[in-house]
């Protein structure tokens, strides 16, 4: 992604920030900005994995359901064994396995990514609902919860995770052969195949990474909310995918970046933060959210056309 495009998007975030700073005294405080970063981190962790999938012209609709099952299993393991490490490993492995199966469905069975991961979404919902039977698992050790709600040097722990994933993911996509191959597959799968890129194995990799990020997000979710229920994933899926697209990654693959996704996640978080700070009424909030998202996308398109023309 060209730096200038990212500039336009960051511009959208800055415009909203300036408006909020003018309207609310509380907005520009350091603690609120850290608060926004922490809230954005959960969505970014999920969205970063999907970014890789979408860059390769795929799609992963199962991330929310993945978070729910991974969180419930991690919660069970922590409760049964008392081991935080085992719980984290469980959450991550569950995420990875689901991602790997998604990859196999797409590459070996040659299912369209939408169908494969949509089917996976329902399978995971089914397993989680059955397993939890309407139950809630809650109350975890403080050392584990610090992963979601703790601070290090005044900065929330999930923010470090977010920045870590951003840097690692940025280096991976920009400077490794794997990263370049993922872009190439997204730009034109046939050409990529003919030029000798192992398309199937790279696709397996991106789905697995997406699953792994959902597993990580599930651990952070669990640590932050101190509880796991079967239905926690559904409200996460669309915002995460929206963050990827608002961040400028093309749904058709080949174009986009993780830093764009960070901007998208910040954007969505700022909208909720702003509505709360300005206490916009409950019945208006969906309308306001929708209008801002559409307006931002439109401004972005206009700005890019100017830039190109």
């Amino acid at each position, binding site marked *: 992604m060209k730096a200038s495009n990212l500039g336009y998007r960051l511009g959208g975030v800055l415009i909203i920030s300036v408006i909020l700073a003018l309207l*609310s005294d509380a907005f520009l405080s350091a603690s609120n900005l850290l608060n926004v970063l922490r809230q954005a981190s959960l969505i970014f962790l999920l969205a970063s994995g999907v970014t890789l999938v979408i860059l390769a012209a795929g799609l992963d609709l199962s991330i929310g359901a993945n978070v729910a099952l991974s969180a419930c299993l991690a919660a069970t393991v922590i409760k049964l064994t008392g081991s935080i490490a085992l719980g984290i490993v469980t959450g991550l492995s569950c995420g990875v396995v689901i991602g790997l199966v998604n990859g196999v469905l797409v590459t070996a069975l040659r299912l369209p990514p939408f169908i494969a991961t949509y089917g996976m979404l329902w399978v995971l919902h089914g397993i989680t609902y059955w397993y939890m039977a309407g139950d809630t698992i809650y109350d975890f050790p403080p050392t584990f919860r610090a992963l979601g709600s703790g601070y290090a040097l005044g900065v929330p722990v999930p923010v470090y995770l977010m920045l870590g994933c951003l840097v690692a993911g940025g280096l991976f996509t920009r400077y490794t052969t794997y990263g370049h191959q993922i872009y190439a597959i997204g730009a034109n799968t046939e050409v990529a195949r003919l030029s000798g890129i192992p398309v199937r194995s790279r696709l397996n990799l991106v789905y697995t990474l997406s699953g792994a990020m959902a597993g990580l997000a599930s651990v952070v979710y669990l640590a932050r909310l101190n509880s796991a229920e079967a239905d926690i994933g559904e409200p996460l899926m669309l915002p995460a995918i929206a963050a990827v697209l608002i961040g400028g990654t093309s749904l058709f693959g080949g174009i986009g970046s993780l830093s764009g996704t960070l901007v998208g996640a910040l954007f969505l978080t700022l909208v909720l933060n702003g509505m709360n700070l300005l206490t916009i009424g409950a019945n208006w909030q969906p309308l306001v959210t929708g209008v801002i998202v559409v307006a931002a996308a439109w401004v972005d398109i206009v700005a890019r056309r100017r830039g190109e023309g």
Partner: protein
Amino acid sequence: MMRSIRTRLWAAGLICVSGTACSRGGGGQAADQVALFTKNQTNPYFQSIRLGAESAASQMKAGIVHYVPTKPDSIPEQMSQIEDAIIKQPKAIVFIPVDFKAMVPGVQKLNAASIPVVNLTDRSAGGQFVSFVGCDDERLGLSAGRYLLKHLNGKGNVIIIEGVGGSANSAARVRGFNQAISEFPGVKLVASQPGNFQRLQALQVTENLLQAHAQIDGVLAANDAMALGAIEALDGANRKAAVIGINGTKEAVDAIKAGKLLATVDCNGFEQGCIGVMTAIRHLRKLPVPTEFAFPQPVIDRSNYGDLDMPDAQRSCPMWEELVKG
């Protein structure tokens, strides 16, 4: 606390995960067969209702069939489950509409098929019912509000975490909160924002409101899950406020015991399940039933959580006479 894996799996077996129904209860096909319609498999509240219903059915030697939409709160799915029930002809139906308005035509179909229906939990906007068994949401909000504001000695800043915008339950509970606030002139409502009945949203909304308001003394949440989300936000920000929820879930009771949650207002699912099914069976056996069942809806705090401090799977329904008197 968490049950063992084995109990968990056993409990999971109680619900039919497929779109069609499965039958349970001692009576089997020969006895009075009651069909129970609940909204989803995800909310612990409906699981409590199902367990209460099971207990009532076994107490009264009747059978029970569950209808639960695979997709939570799905209107078309509940509609087709009604059609399925009309073909299978249970003796009576205990019905929680997934949507109080949209399911009215479904209720009318049941009326046309002459199957007696008891309306449970959410009051349907139309159709004919033997009886309504459920909580009064506005009164829940009112008692929660009054309890919290009395605890604050009638002064301070409070916030409301609403449920889903546009939902009848949320709107009524929030009306109750606001009425309570209007009774205490020393209390200031600094914000009323939607948490969609979800823990994560309530957590983030509370975090945002803590940024905007330096002093928040009380949080009125329209359900327990959101109250607990608000508590996580307060903990994370190292701030203190009295928090009250609604529903009387086991998790809320544990939080009350731990001194984190001030109180919850009991609108207990388990007893609703008991009374709903008992009403249906009594109607079939030509025993008297009230057309409207008013729950006492007590506020549960440190002094009286005892009754609720037990997993629903281990509870059993009180006798009818005890419930009706209470």
